[in-house]
């Protein structure tokens, strides 16, 4: 049989022979777009005037592509594209379900807002050091992590977004930035190394890295391999990336040091990638093991949300306060994963979308507030309400949303989550959600009273009057706030989408079938 070298080899046993449908190219279109724009912007980085002119249409295109991908996934279920045409599990598959597509779209919107704000906030030296190229490469990493269906590939995208985020973090090379970046860099390196260790063990157990393949094999593997240990290792790695309680200290040490727009992008995008990865691993790959770890995740979630909100109460710096609010929100998402009921997970998905938009908007608002009142310290600033009433009104909406007060987008996921935890009798988890919301209200209420409502202290009033540009400064903030308001008023559609996404996570049969159309690996 080996001698028949002249006979044509039947490649259909090992390779995808059908051409990829045109619509499926949407799966990797965000990555191609981000990489090309990143490379082009890197080549013209000396031309600081040209940078935003090239970058902003690219970010708009990213939003459009992500929206088209979401529409495609909603209409035809999870879709898969396999690289190099090797049949999965040998080729690297990109598999998108509703959760991945929703997060990609929301991330693209946050990046667009950051890109517009950056046109006004990042000065020429920041542009020359590569703000826009790094932004696109970070978006390539973030979208890649949301879209991939291969766990080692997920690790690679984590590293892509991490190294791009290093570049963004030290954009000004100031003392505080280098100090913050040192802690951020080392602790995140440790976190991704834990991820790699866990993936090494996972490969040793299953002999495959394709997530759908692992999900199939894990059902048969129960009791034969230390899968709970493996999931705990993943929980540590992703908890560290997401800044969950005992391993969250890199976040408040670094998120307030870079430029405001960089903080905004980090707060909107990076921690959520950790939450997403844990959702994927815990709910799709190891659901039975997650049930055993459920109470650990629940305790961590409750501690994260309460201690995050308490940390926010103790801060005088507006941006550090927001950093603790990011942590508190992570706790709420983990609470949804801990419950793992349809209600809990759809609340976690909804809250992730809400948190990406709201935290980005709040950091942008804090930047404008600092320019309007002369500093980030809430002890030393004031009078924004009289000088910039519109900014004050928008910020108040965001404060309501982040505390989970009606009628804005933070309310619905918390309502669903409280109900879901009461349904399983976890009254203490419901109480923690409500208590963290209460503490958050006090923390942001104090910022509102001191920085916005209070008349300006004399020292701050002496500073020069800030001129805020109505387009590039306000437009991204207004865009994000409009989303917050619409999500709060008309949550039905997003709620239904997150419920469908939850079903795809809890019963990943469609996800697996999209990777293995024949019905399973041999």
């Amino acid at each position, binding site marked *: *049989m*080996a*001698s*028949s*070298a002249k006979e044509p*080899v039947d490649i259909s046993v090992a390779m995808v022979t059908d051409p990829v449908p045109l619509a499926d190219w949407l799966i990797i279109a965000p990555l191609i777009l981000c990489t090309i724009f990143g490379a082009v912007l890197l080549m013209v980085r000396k031309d600081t005037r040209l940078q935003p002119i090239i970058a902003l249409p690219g970010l708009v295109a990213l939003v459009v592509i992500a929206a088209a991908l979401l529409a495609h996934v909603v209409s035809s279920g999870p879709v898969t594209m396999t690289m190099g045409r090797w049949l999965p599990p040998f080729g690297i598959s990109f598999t998108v379900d509703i959760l991945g597509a929703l997060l990609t779209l929301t991330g693209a919107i946050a990046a667009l807002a950051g890109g517009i704000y950056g046109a006004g906030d990042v000065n020429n030296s920041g542009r020359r050091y590569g703000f826009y190229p790094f932004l696109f490469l970070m978006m390539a990493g973030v979208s890649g992590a949301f879209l991939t269906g291969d766990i*080692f590939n997920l690790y*690679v995208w984590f*590293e892509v977004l991490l*190294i791009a985020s*290093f570049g963004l973090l*030290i954009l000004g*090379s100031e*003392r*505080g*930035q*280098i*100090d*913050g*970046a*040192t*802690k951020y*860099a*080392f602790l995140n*390196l*440790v976190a991704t*190394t834990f991820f*790699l*260790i866990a*993936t*090494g*063990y996972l*490969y*040793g157990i299953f002999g495959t*890295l394709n997530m759908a393949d692992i999900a199939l094999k894990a059902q048969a593997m129960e009791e034969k391999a230390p899968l709970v240990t493996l999931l705990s290792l993943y929980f540590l790695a992703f908890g560290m990336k997401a800044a969950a309680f005992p391993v969250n200290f890199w976040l*408040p*040490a*670094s998120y*307030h*040091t870079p430029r405001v727009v960089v903080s905004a992008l980090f707060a909107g995008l990076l921690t959520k990638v950790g939450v997403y990865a844990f959702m994927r691993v815990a709910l799709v790959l190891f659901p039975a093991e997650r049930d055993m770890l459920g109470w650990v995740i629940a305790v961590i979630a409750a501690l994260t949300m309460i201690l995050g909100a308490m940390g926010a*109460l*103790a*801060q*005088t710096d507006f941006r550090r306060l927001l950093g603790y609010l990011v942590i508190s929100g992570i706790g709420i998402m983990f609470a949804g994963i801990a419950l793992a009921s349809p209600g809990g997970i759809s609340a976690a998905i909804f809250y992730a979308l809400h948190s990406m938009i709201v935290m980005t908007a709040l950091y942008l608002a804090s930047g404008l507030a600092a320019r309007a009142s002369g500093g980030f310290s*809430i*002890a030393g600033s004031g009078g924004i309400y009289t000088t910039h009433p519109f900014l004050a009104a928008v910020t108040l909406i965001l404060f309501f949303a982040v505390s989970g007060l009606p009628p804005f987008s933070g309310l619905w996921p918390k309502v669903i989550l409280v109900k879901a935890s009461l349904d399983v009798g976890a009254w203490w988890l419901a109480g923690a959600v409500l208590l963290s919301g209460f503490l958050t209200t006090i923390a942001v209420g*104090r910022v509102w*009273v*001191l920085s916005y409502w*209070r008349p300006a202290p004399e020292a701050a009033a002496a500073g020069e009057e800030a001129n805020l540009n109505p387009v590039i400064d306000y437009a991204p903030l207004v865009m994000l706030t409009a989303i917050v308001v619409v999500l709060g008023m008309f949550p039905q559609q997003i709620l239904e989408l997150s419920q469908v996404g939850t079903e795809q996570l809890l019963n990943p049969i469609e996800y697996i079938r999209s990777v293995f159309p024949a019905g399973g690996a041999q």
Partner: protein
Amino acid sequence: MEVPMAFLVAIFFAVSIYLFLSRHIIRILLGAAILSNAVNLLIFTSGRLTREIPPILPAGGATEGIVTANPLPQALILTAIVIAFSFFAFLLVLSYRAYQELGTDDTNEMRFAEPEEQKLPPLGY
């Protein structure tokens, strides 16, 4: 062969964790370098250590029944080495800049982002 390799990986991990516990950035950096090598060896071992022929097709096409070495862990390690190397290069420069700018490599004294005595927010209005 896997058992001695497991002990070797354990020693690598122990050394890197010991170095990570230091207050000095340069030792943490060395710990990071050793940690990445520990992980590479771990992936290599978890792909099973077998002495087989290289996974290259002979000229006559594929032959049934020949056991070849597993190329996948090597591809994973290659990726991990490249990533770890670029991270190490970045961290090395970052640590040097931190030493220049902050004047110390002792993490206890690096308090520019988080000053030691922080004021509480005003308690009254």
